[in-house]
Each structure stands twice: as C-alpha cells, then as structure tokens.
C-alpha cells in the first residue's frame, strides 16, 4: 500500500481537453461544459453581453465526465462507473460508483431518484438520501450483448430503454419502475445500421428514436409500428458521434468530420438542410440544444465550445431593376449608405434608395454624362459618384442640391475609394490612361450644412505597375496607405504626390482588399491587411527609415476562396475582433476570423457579379445583381454573437510536446494537428492561448525553448523550424513569429514514409561566437546531426551527420562538460548512449563513450540532471519500467572523456503501460507518469527505488510532463496541471 503524502502535493488544479458533454440548466441560463473531471459553468443568458465563466468544479472521478442531465438538485453527472449529483450553487458533490459502465441516465418523478442504464444492458435505480447513495433496484434485459451506447427515457411510470450492440442491432425494451420485473424481454429489434452505433435518442413524445453510427448515417426509427426504419440520412463524411431531436421535426448531429448538421424529415426521407462548420482539429464530441432560444452548443476535441443559432436565417428580397427608375435605363452601380439602405445609381443619373420599408426614388443628378460608379462614406449622408467622362459628383443623398461637380479625369473613372476619419473625408479616384498606367487623385472634403467643400486635390505619383485597390488614412501622422492589385503597399504623406516607400508582395501578387492601422508610432506603423489570396497578415512597417523592410509578424490563411474585405472592431469587453468576407465558389461568406467561425454563406453566383456589403455589429447586409434583378440579403438578428465561441480550444489532436520558457510564465505546445501554440501560464494554473502558427506539414515531434525569445520545433519530413517571441507591450499580447525553416539536403535516397526529426537539443556555442547556437537533432532513420545557427543572421549550417544503427532515435539531450559537448541519445532498441560530439573539431567523427541497455523495448522518456561532474540519466520505457543511472564524468586528456557508473537503479514493473514521462525532482526523488494514467513519486532508499506517492491523471495517451517552479503539467489528449506543493 502506497503511503499518502501531503494533501497539497501534486494537487490537480486544471484540465484542458476534449469537451465530452454539455448541458443547460436553470431555464437555459447556464451552460455546463465537461472536460475530463472538470465542470465549467458559463452564464449564457441573453442579458449578459458576453458569456462568462462563472464557476469551475473539479469532480473526484477517476473517469472523464461522459454525460450530464439537468435535475431538480442541479446536475446529475456520470462518467465510466462514477456518478454524482452536483449542486451548482454550493459546488457540493455527492458521488458514488457502481461496478458497470454507465451509458445514460434519467431522473425519476420523485426527488433525488434516478435511473442509469449500463453496459450490461441493465437499469439501476438510484436514490440519494442524506448525502449517500443507494441502489434500490436492478432490472436486467434478457439480452446482454456487447454494447456501444444506450439511452433511457421516463414516460409516466415506465422506463424506456434503447441499447445498441457492437453488432449492428438496437434493442428497445421497457418496464414499470414501481413494480419492476427482475428480467425484461425485448419489445423491438431495430436492424439496419451497417456499423456500430454511437448515440441514441428518443423523441420527447417517445414515438421515435434516432441513431447515429460509424456507417456515417443518421437513422430515424418508429418504435410503435412496422416498418420500423422511417428514413436514413446520408451526408456526414466520417463517423457520427451525437444526435438530438429539435422542435418541429428536426434533428441535429455532430461528427468526426467537424460539422454540425441539421436534418428535417418528411414521410420517408431525411434531408440535410443546413451544415455548420467552424470547429477545428478532429471530432465534435458533444452537443446540447436550448429550449429557450434557438441555439445549439457544441463541444470539440480541442476543448472549444461554440454556439450556433439554428433558426435565424438570412432575409432575402428581390427587386426588379426596371421598377427602380422611371425611364428605361440601365443600372450603373450600387452601394450601401448604411446597413439595409442601398443606394442605386442608373446610367442616366436617376437614383433610388431601397431599405426595409421599400424603395424610394430620390432626385436625379442633373448630368448629361453616363454614370459609372457610386460609393458612400459609411454612416454619413454623403456619397461620391463618377461618370464615364471623368466627372466626380460629391453630394448628400438626402439633399441632392448639396452637390459639388468636379471635372478631373479625362476619361472613364473606373474606381472610387472612400475613407473617413473623424470629420475628414477622403476620396481616391482612378482612371485608366494606358497599359498598366493609371491617373489617380486623392481629394479631401468636408461638409457644411449648406455646401460641400473641396479641401485639396493631389494627383498621385504611383509606383510602377501599381493599380490601387484599397485606401486607409493615418490622421495622427498625416499619412495614408494604398494597397494594389498585385499585392504591393505604398506610403504617402497627406498633401504630397510622391510616395515615401513602397513594399512589394505583401500578399504575394494578389490584391490587398483592406488595410487596418492597429497602431501608429513615430517610427513605425502596425497594420493588418486582408488579401484576395485569403490571408490576413500583420506587418510592422517603418515610417521613417525608408530602406527598412516590413516585418511580418503574423500571416494566417483564413479560408479557401478569396477575401474581399475585412473589419476590426473593439467589442464591449475591450477585445479587438476581426471579421473578413469574400467569396468561395458561388458563395459570399462572412467569417469571424478571431474565433474562426463562419457567420453565414449566401449563394449569389460568385464574385464576378456586381455586389456590395455592409456590416455593423448588430446587422449585416449583402446585395448582388444578376439577370436584371437586385437581390438583397440581411441578417436582422445578432448572428455575430450567436454564432460564436464561448471557449477557445487548445489542439485538435494529441499534444506531442510542451515546453516552458526559462522564466516559467509562457508555454509552447505542439501537436499532431501540426500547430505550435503559444500559451500564457498564469500563477493559478490557468492556461490562456495567445497565438498559434502552422509551419509544419506533419505532426510536431519536439519543442524546445532556448533563452526567452528563441524557439525551435521539429516534425516529420525533416522539418526544423525556428521562431522568435515578439513582445511589443504597447500594442499586443505576446506572440511567436516564424523565422527559419531548415530544408533537407538533397540526396540519392528517398523515404516512403516521412523522415522525422524526433528530438532537438540546443546549447550556446560560445567558441563560435556569442550569438551562435549549437543544435543537435536525432531522426527516425538513426541519424544524428549537428547544426550551427546564427541568431542574428538566421543562418543554419549542418556541421556533422552520423548514424547509430537502423533503429529510430527518440531523444537527444546535450551536456557541456569542459570543452566537450556530450550528447545523450535514446532509441527504440532500449539503449541510451552518450556520444562525444567533438564539436570543436569538424574533422573528428563523434564517438560513443558510454552505452547501456536500460529497457527491453523503446525508451519512452528521458530526463537529464547534473551536479558538477555527476550526471543522472533517468528513463522510462515502453516495457513499463523506470531506470536511473548515476554517472561520473572525467576528462582524462584533451580529446578524451570517460564515463564511470556510480549507481544504477531499476524498477521493472513500475507501471502497467509505457512510461512516457520521468522527471528528476531531487537527488532522492523521481516522478514518473505512464499511459496507465498513474503518476508515481519514487524515493531512493539504499540501492533501490520505492514508490511513496501515487496520483491519477485524466490525460489519456500521456505524451510527457514538464514543470516550472510551482506546477507540473502532464500532456497528451489535452493537458492537466498539478500544483507541486512541497516538491517545488
């Protein structure tokens, strides 16, 4: 029996991982979110501006929470063999366990009475009295197959059960719980699924059952009459995990394919009417539907929770162009002067305004020219129009007598760009004058009660091949920026015709759709650009130093398709949010890029048709023109907030590597989802994602943090990436940016699989320069490589490359001993070897100076600690064993280091599974963690290791553990934070 240590030692304080269950309580005012053993409660009531996390309760389960049920006392929760009632107001938890796996539960009519259906196809009646549980009865079904899922529903005094076996059958049975028989026969067999079922749900009236399966279908069954199978729904492209009945003959499902789908059924068909996307990674595990509001909440494998408004649809209206104008004329252009207010301009100067009250003609422009384009200054009464003969008209659409006509261009004006900052109105106009040549003017206006004032007119000198597509003005420093159709950016002073600087390939060779100035300083501008290439980029561009290049701080591919615009606004909570819009195939879309959520799609035929878009926080409008018809779409309700993210996730797949920065307040995590994420680690154990980058093409293998601002990651396909931490206190939270990708050298060999760099070790190479790092990597083809990296020049050179055997190498850690660099390498054959790399002499081949077989199979974890000349190597293996070798290093000559073994500790059956993490705490104490989800603390006693403390972790597929001064983090499927307590 293990001795229980201090209660404060290895106390769990946080878990971030898959959202395994969701529930709504208190008339849908609170959303309960289950992650591992952690229950997070959000206030999602309409009266709150933003959903807030109000409580977090850690349940004493040795299983993750698998299901939740609102009940009179708060919440009934179950996970594996555990169950509990949670009083969400007092955080009191009344829990117990039974011997069987619980699939589902229901509350009986009496208070504190529940029933659960288990893996033995049994129903247990449970009663909570004075804080303790009692199993009052157990009712068995005649059939006891291997079950994948089951569901239960109360109807009067009867309990209805549906259970699905691993062998494609669903059993429906029922009994009276006031007088239950000991064994119940099956009423109905439902046959038709071609794979195992993962969820079953009764309709609220008990007449129907829906099921979802690994055959990728949703099936609807009648349990009253034959034929039992009503309809089958195809559409998901992977296994389907959960289903739920909605009101009005609708069903919602979530799947491994990351979609939430709505279905309607009629007669014998199930139709997939709507599909929501926005989760990332893999798997949506859970969903719950609100009965108070038309909202569905979903939980993903990465720990994110999203809400979806499934009722609000985009309002659509269609108006014939011929009804807008009095004479037979053509539509020239249209724009929104505000949301739901569209101003249409005919070629002959007639104008009409369309809003939610209908259409209304306004006095026409008195002109003899053909009109070509109209644009508005947003949320003002002023618009600019242009003609084919080069005249610009600036006027108020409320009073077209308030007009200024300017003969400026000599030919057709092709484009107008408007920008307003405070009370200054800027207008950029463009006409075509030759091959790749344009005449561009920038004008400034202001508006008085009775007239339009032209402040200035400047003809701009353009850089070569510069075709303007976007405009923004920095009033503080009297600058303006213009983006071009070929991805260039130019900086001007207001009032001057010559550009100060031009930068090419801001969006490669694609158009810059919008420019947003995030921050303006004397020496630089921080700008965010949205490009037609689908990217949102963040740049720091120099204002004064003309020869300096822009620094790309962040580059993010938002979507497939093209981006036509973007908007940054501060929300009420002070955070800035980014929206982008554009086209994908024949659809126009609006996307919340900060939360990576599509707000809506509109099938309008594509970007080549004339279109306009306008967006406010509470309403959005889109208009397009085709076949002599104007189609106007608007969202009357606040979709921006309803289709939103309540909780951000971490990684969609297993976390493979994590590392603290030297001061212990920042974290890096790398995952099989190929992303590297920067995380803030707070003093209470909370983990806050800061930003995420994706520069790998396969899963991350290892991460390491060198000093406070240089980071490295490795992966498959011989990928080695270097990052830098950017900290600009005046503007942003911390973020990482990419600096270098090491590409493999060409060789005569190729690999059918991916060649993985499995680990990396970085030390300073002071003998080569103060800013030079020495990098050692190990690979899956048994190769060890040594690189030098110059931090300033970002130059990476391969100095040495050598082979061990043909096994996969899994760990590398460098130790500087005098003038030597010793490399400790572990491999899948269970060996640990120490190489002398001879890093000061490129000509000398590295040499093994010590080797030991420490495990029968792969070394799964390695930890090095050093005390002067004594090196301690701790390992965990796939054989479930741990080992510790105490070695004495001795330099016997200039080119020779010998290793003497002082002590060897070995525990063959430390864990029941792979030991994927070892951590040396002190000379006498060692921590180990395994895929059996046990954490053990070992103490050196004489010549052996003794376990003195045990803890359980809820992280499945444990990949490793790391620590800072106060906390231990175990990562795998999600991660769990423990307080070290007296082990610190």
């Amino acid at each position, binding site marked *: 029996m293990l001795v229980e240590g201090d209660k404060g030692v290895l106390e769990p304080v946080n878990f971030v991982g898959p959202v*395994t269950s969701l529930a709504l309580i208190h008339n849908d005012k609170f959303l309960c979110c289950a992650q591992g053993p952690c229950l997070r409660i959000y206030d999602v009531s309409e009266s709150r501006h933003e959903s807030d996390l109000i409580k977090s309760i850690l349940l004493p389960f040795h299983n993750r929470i*698998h299901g939740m049920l609102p009940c009179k006392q708060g919440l009934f929760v179950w*996970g*594996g063999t555990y169950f509990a009632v949670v009083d969400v107001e007092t955080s009191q938890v009344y829990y117990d366990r039974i*011997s*069987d*796996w619980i699939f589902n539960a229901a509350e009986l009519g009496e208070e504190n009475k529940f029933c659960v259906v288990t*893996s*033995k196809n049994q129903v247990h009646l449970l009663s909570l009295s004075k804080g303790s549980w009692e199993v009052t009865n157990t009712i068995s079904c005649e059939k*006891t*197959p*291997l079950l*994948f899922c089951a569901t239960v529903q109360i109807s009067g005094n009867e309990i209805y059960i549906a259970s699905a076996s691993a*062998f494609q059958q669903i059993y429906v049975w029922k009994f009276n719980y006031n007088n239950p028989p000991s064994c119940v026969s099956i009423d109905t067999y439902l046959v038709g*699924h*071609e*794979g*195992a079922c*993962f969820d079953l749900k009764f309709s609220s009236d008990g007449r129907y059952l829906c099921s979802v399966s690994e*055959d*990728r279908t949703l099936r609807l069954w009648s349990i009253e009459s034959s034929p039992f199978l009503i309809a089958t729904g*195809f559409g*998901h492209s992977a296994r389907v*995990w959960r289903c739920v009945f909605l009101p009005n003959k609708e069903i919602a499902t979530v799947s491994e394919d990351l979609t939430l789908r709505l279905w309607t059924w009629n007669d014998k068909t199930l139709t*997939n009417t709507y599909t929501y996307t926005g989760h990332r990674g*893999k*798997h949506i*595990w859970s969903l719950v539907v609100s009965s108070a509001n038309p909202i569905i909440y979903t939980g993903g494998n990465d720990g994110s929770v999203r809400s979806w408004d499934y009722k609000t649809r985009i309002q659509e209206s269609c108006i014939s162009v011929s009804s807008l104008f009095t004479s037979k004329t053509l539509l020239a252009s249209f724009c929104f002067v505000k949301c739901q207010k569209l101003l249409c301009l005919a070629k002959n100067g007639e104008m009409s305004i369309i809003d939610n009250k209908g259409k209304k003609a306004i006095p026409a422009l008195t002109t003899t020219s053909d009109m070509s384009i109209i644009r508005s200054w947003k949320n003002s009464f002023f618009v600019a129009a242009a003609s084919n003969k080069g005249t610009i008209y600036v006027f108020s659409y409320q009073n077209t007598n308030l007009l200024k006509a300017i003969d400026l261009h000599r030919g057709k004006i092709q484009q107008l760009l408007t920008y307003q900052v405070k009370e200054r109105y800027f207008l950029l106009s463009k006409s075509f004058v030759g091959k790749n040549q344009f005449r561009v003017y920038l004008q400034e206006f202001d508006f008085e009660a009775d007239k339009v004032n032209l402040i200035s007119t400047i003809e701009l000198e353009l850089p070569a091949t510069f075709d303007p597509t976007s405009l923004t003005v920095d009033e503080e420093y009297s600058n303006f920026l213009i983006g071009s159709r070929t991805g260039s950016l130019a900086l001007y002073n207001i009032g001057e015709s010559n550009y100060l600087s031009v930068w090419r390939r801001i969006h490669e060779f694609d158009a810059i759709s919008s420019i947003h100035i995030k921050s303006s300083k004397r020496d630089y501008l921080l700008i965010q650009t949205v490009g037609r290439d689908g990217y949102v980029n963040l740049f720091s561009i120099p204002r004064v130093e003309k020869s300096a290049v822009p620094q790309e701080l962040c580059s993010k591919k938002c979507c497939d398709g093209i981006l036509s615009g973007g908007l940054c606004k501060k929300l009420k909570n002070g955070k800035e949010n980014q929206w982008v819009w554009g086209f994908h195939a024949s659809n126009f879309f609006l996307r919340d890029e900060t939360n990576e959520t599509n707000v809506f799609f509109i099938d309008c035929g594509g970007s080549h048709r004339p279109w306009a878009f306008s967006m406010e926080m509470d309403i959005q409008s889109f208009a397009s023109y085709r076949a002599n018809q104007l189609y106007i779409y608007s969202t009357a309700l606040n979709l921006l907030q309803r289709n939103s993210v309540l909780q951000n996730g971490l990684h969609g*797949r297993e976390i493979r590597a994590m590392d603290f920065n030297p001061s212990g307040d920042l974290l890096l995590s790398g995952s*099989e989802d190929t992303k590297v994420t920067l995380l803030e680690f707070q003093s209470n154990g909370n983990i806050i994602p800061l930003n995420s980058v994706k520069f*790998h093409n*396969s899963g991350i293998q290892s991460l390491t943090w060198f000093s406070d601002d240089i980071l490295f990651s490795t992966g*498959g*396909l011989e990928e080695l990436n270097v990052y830098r931490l950017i900290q600009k206190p005046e503007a942003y939270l911390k973020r990482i940016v990419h600096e270098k990708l090491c590409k493999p050298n060409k060789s005569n*060999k*190729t*690999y*059918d*699989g*991916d*060649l*993985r760099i499995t680990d990396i070790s970085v030390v300073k190479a002071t003998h080569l320069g103060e800013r030079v790092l020495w990098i050692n990597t190990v690979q*899956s*083809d*048994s190769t060890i490589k040594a690189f030098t990296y110059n931090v300033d020049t970002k130059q990476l050179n391969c100095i040495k490359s050598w082979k061990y055997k043909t*096994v996969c190498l899994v760990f590398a850690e460098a130790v500087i001993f005098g003038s030597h660099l010793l490399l400790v390498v572990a491999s*899948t054959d269970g060996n640990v070897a120490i190489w002398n790399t001879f890093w000061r002499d490129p000509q000398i081949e590295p040499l093994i100076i010590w080797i030991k077989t420490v495990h*029968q*199979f*792969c070394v*799964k974890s390695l930890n090095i600690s050093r005390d002067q000349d004594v090196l301690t190597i701790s390992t965990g293996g*796939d*054989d479930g064993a741990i080992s510790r070798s105490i070695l004495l290093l001795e330099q016997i000559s200039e080119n020779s280091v010998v290793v003497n073994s002082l002590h060897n500790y070995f525990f063959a*059956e430390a864990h*029941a*599974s792979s030991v994927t993490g070892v951590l040396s705490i002190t000379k006498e104490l060692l921590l180990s963690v395994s*895929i*059996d989800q046990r954490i053990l603390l070992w103490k050196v006693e004489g010549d052996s290791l003794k376990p003195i403390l045990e803890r359980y972790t809820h992280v*499945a*597929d444990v990949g490793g553990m790391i620590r800072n001064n106060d906390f231990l983090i175990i990562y795998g499927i999600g991660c769990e934070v423990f307080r070290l307590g007296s082990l610190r």
Partner: protein
Amino acid sequence: MGRSSKDKRDAYYRLAKEQGWRARSAFKLLQLNEQFNLFEGAKRVVDLCAAPGSWSQVLSRELLKNIDTSIAADEKPMIVAVDLQPMAPIDGVCTLQLDITHPNTLSIILSHFGNEPADLVVSDGAPDVTGLHDLDEYIQAQILLAAFNLAVCVLKPGGKFVAKIFRGRDVSLLYSQLRLMFRKVSCAKPRSSRASSIESFVVCEDFNPPSNFQPDLTKPLCVIDPTNAHEIAPFIACGDLDGYDADATYPVEINMKKATLDVIQPPTAPPYKRAIELKHSKMMS
C-alpha cells in the same frame, strides 16, 4: 493536415504486401511465436476477431508446415476463424461469421473440433479506434473479456490464450482477471508493434481454472475493481532486435525501380461502404 507519425505506413506494411499477408499484424503473431512457441503441439486452434485474416494465414502456414500428407485426416491441425465481419477464405481454415458473445457460438466451434477442447485461442480484436479514449479502452477491454470468456470455455487444461490488449488506464484490472485462470500471464510487445501505440499482447500460458469454475457463455465478464489492485504483468519484448523497427524510417534508393503492389485484401464490407458509394455517385449535394 499532413500525416502524423502515428498514421504513417511503416516497414512492416511494405513487408506484408511483399510476403502476401493480408495485414501487417501477421508479423506480430510470428514474433510472439518466436518468443513463446505458441504453435508447439497445437492441433486445434481458434482465431477470434479474425478479419481480415492475417493471423489465420499465419496459423495456416505455420501449423500445416512439414505436415506429412499421408497423415490421417483426423490428425491434421484444425483452425477455426470467427468474426462478425465476412472474411475471404483461407486454405486450411474454417471461417465462421459469428458473434463471439452469442451463446450458440461455443457449440458451433466445438462441433468443428469433434467436441474436443482447443489447444490455443488467439484474438487480435480491437475496435475501430474512435479517438474518445475512454470508450476505446472500455470497448477493447470488453472484446478481450469476451474472447477470454469464450477461450476458457473451449481450452483444454494447459492450453494457451493470446490476445491484443490496450495498455491504458484499466489494464491492471484485466491482468487480474486473466491471472485467475492461467498460471502464467505475460505482457508482450513484438517489434512490429510501434512504440507509439498502446497496443500490446497478453500471453496466458497453462490454463488452470479454479475447481468450482463452470463455463457459461451467457454471462459476460466485466471489468470490476473491488480491491483497487494494481496487478502488473511482466513485460517481454519479442522479435529480433536486428530486425526491422516499426518506428524507424528506411531509405529507398531513388534509382531503384519501384513496384506498387496491390492491397492483398481490401476491406470486405466496411460500415461506410454505402455512404461512400452514394457520395461517389453524386446523389448528395
């Protein structure tokens, strides 16, 4: 998203194609046999959860090797393969499409053995891994126990049982169950199984049921934890250390002629077959 290290095809995948095995898992049984001599003296063998049939291929080849054709028919080794999924036929193997938890399965298997008990039961059963680890480990444990329940009904005293096991959270509890019936229980991992996988194989030797044990397939076993015991079976690595490493990456000369081999046995009836057919026929939007 690129392929992850867990998903890549390894050296044994290519070897299986070259040597004609239906799946790379064939090498696991071969390597287990090298260590434990499982096939020695085996005349009646049951392969549970057999599809697609690579373990049955191994059994057929190894047990029928060096058998004199003049031996009487009733002396030849007999192999019965059982799975719920349909399986393409294999020479020397009787394939049954049955539910291993159904009570009738036992009598059908024994009838093929002339009502004689079996010498060896093997099971390479695993669910199509869902990714929700709790459910995966639970289902795999249930499959193992179902196979175990059937094995103790058909094995002769001194017989052997080999089954895939997921070494996750509840693995200790499974060891406790197995140790009740067998004198020797080991946890083995062949070299052809990746270190990145939690898969291992439990090798149970010398079947020795308690005197009061009554075989009953109608009562399935379940994982129970009455004493919080932490049973750990000794670990044994199988296979030649100089053989191929399932985690390693091996080079292929660029100038070598490459031959793409067909899949030996594609999935016979995957559950998503109809969904894919509909998608390909563009019947769905």
